[in-house]
């Protein structure tokens, strides 16, 4: 997979990113700060004073929320990086066409792109973990432990969304994906509250969402909670999406670009 062309694609994506890294890091830092302040601290006080404590398995709301929010952030980063830059490469600026005129082929392009996204996810997770520690939501070890499941969550979205972007015509498809897919997932996959709080018929639906599996494992590894299913199931589901997304991206990008 990681041939030398793949590494070159990863490197050039990183080089392009250097132009915007300052703004990007600031957003990556400010987002968790704002969410944890508003929801974790502001709302958390009410939750902890109310009936929340037992549903949250004895954790303070801020502590409970933080890893869920971390997984949701990597989801958004992974999905966003699979959407906008890819559509720009295919259609808006069309520099993918230029790349494919060099010795780089579709597989190298997809692999290099996804590898670069994994680097981005590492950055996002580390910054988020740092904010969690600042808020006193977790200790250092727990924050570090959360990075791996959080990254896998992001990759489980980056791959399939890259495939979707390669397939869909234009930004309308992407906007709809976020509006009808990712935003509901963000809200109802256990990020903010345990899915046991959902109406019974919705719970199986939550099981199907990749985010829920990511949240379960991120929370499990950072808080020491027992996950709903075996880690093999949760990680297996994410791994399936990562590999499937990688393969599907090659298929659809190939169909789109090699005519």
């Amino acid at each position, binding site marked *: 997979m990681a041939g030398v062309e793949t590494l070159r694609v990863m490197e050039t994506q990183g080089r392009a990113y250097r132009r915007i890294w300052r703004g990007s890091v600031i957003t990556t830092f400010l987002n968790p700060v704002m969410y944890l302040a508003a929801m974790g601290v502001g709302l958390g006080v009410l939750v902890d004073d109310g009936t929340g404590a037992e549903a949250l398995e004895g954790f303070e709301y801020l502590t409970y929320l933080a890893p869920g929010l971390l997984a949701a952030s990597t989801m958004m980063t992974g999905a966003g990086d699979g959407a906008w830059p890819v559509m720009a490469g295919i259609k808006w600026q069309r520099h993918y066409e230029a790349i*494919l005129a060099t010795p780089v082929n579709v597989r190298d392009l997809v692999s290099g792109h996804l590898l670069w996204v994994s680097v981005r996810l590492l950055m996002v997770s580390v910054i988020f973990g740092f904010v969690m520690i600042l808020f006193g939501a977790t200790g250092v070890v727990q924050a570090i432990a959360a990075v791996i499941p959080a990254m896998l969550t992001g990759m489980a979205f980056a791959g399939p969304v890259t495939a979707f972007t390669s397939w869909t015509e234009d930004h309308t498809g992407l906007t709809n994906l976020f509006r009808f897919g990712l935003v509901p997932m963000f809200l109802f996959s256990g990020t903010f509250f345990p899915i046991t709080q959902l109406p019974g018929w919705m719970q199986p639906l939550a099981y199907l969402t990749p985010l829920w599996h990511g949240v379960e494992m991120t929370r499990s590894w950072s808080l020491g909670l027992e996950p709903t299913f075996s880690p093999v199931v949760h990680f297996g589901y994410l791994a399936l999406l990562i590999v499937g997304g990688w393969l599907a991206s090659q298929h659809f990008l190939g169909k789109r670009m090699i005519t």
Partner: protein
Amino acid sequence: MSLSESLVVARRLTKKFGDFAAVDAVDFDIRPGEAFGFLGPNGAGKTSTMKMIGAVSPITAGTLSVFGLNPEVDGPEIRSRLGVVPQQDNLDEEIPVDENLLIYGRYFGMSRAELWPRIDELLEFAELTGRRKDKVAALSGGMKRRLTIARALINEPDLLLLDEPTTGLDPQARHLLWDRLYRLKRQGVTLIITTHFMDEAEQLCDRLVVMDKGKIVAEGSPRALIEQYVTREVIEVRFPVGVQETVVDQMEGIAKRVEVLPDRVLLYSDNGESTMQEVHGRGLEPESMLDRRSTLEDVFLRLTGRTLID
């Protein structure tokens, strides 16, 4: 010259999109060091042909070899020796001029140490040295075009594919580009150029093929094509609005060939002077008459019955 010495050999090369043949069983040979042109109107199949040569579009039928290699299996190796200037610019607009070149060079596996001096050279060549730190988005159309050409040269290609390199440029920018292409040719780079400008083809190409509806309808040097298909001179005759229809009959046989276009009549003749006298001799009173040299445009009209740019 034997076939094995040709850089590109196509035999019954075909590209289909569904049932539609965009390129329909064409044959051509492109030799090292020459400037070879594909001349044709919109939709003739020029870009489709270029993409197959560039090993980015699989061929549907026939055979194609580039550098003696098969694009289907040796794509990366072929592409490593090519420079490609696509019909539409596809630069990375968000990053500066020089980094566009750097990044592109990295895809060819060139090291930074060899790239930076090469980039200085290419920016000089493209007259973009003063803009090297600007974002591409801030460049004019002509500057982007020159940058695209510079980018295509980063890997010192043996063969440069130029798909309508000067479309959309003003005359001054076109001439600058032509000059750059001459220089490359002198350095021994083989050029393949598509265009629908006949003056461009005449200026740049040693040999060309005229394409129409996926087929090659003629082949040769610009001079040879003109000699073969049209006379040396053409008289363009224009009448006041509404008059042309009433007088075309009277022009029959006035020249070797008479071509009636919606807005003018073309008289193909080896002796323009006497043909113009003959027009007056027949009592015709055109608004204007222009005696000019024949061009590839006339060849195209002769071959297809249509003008090149309509």
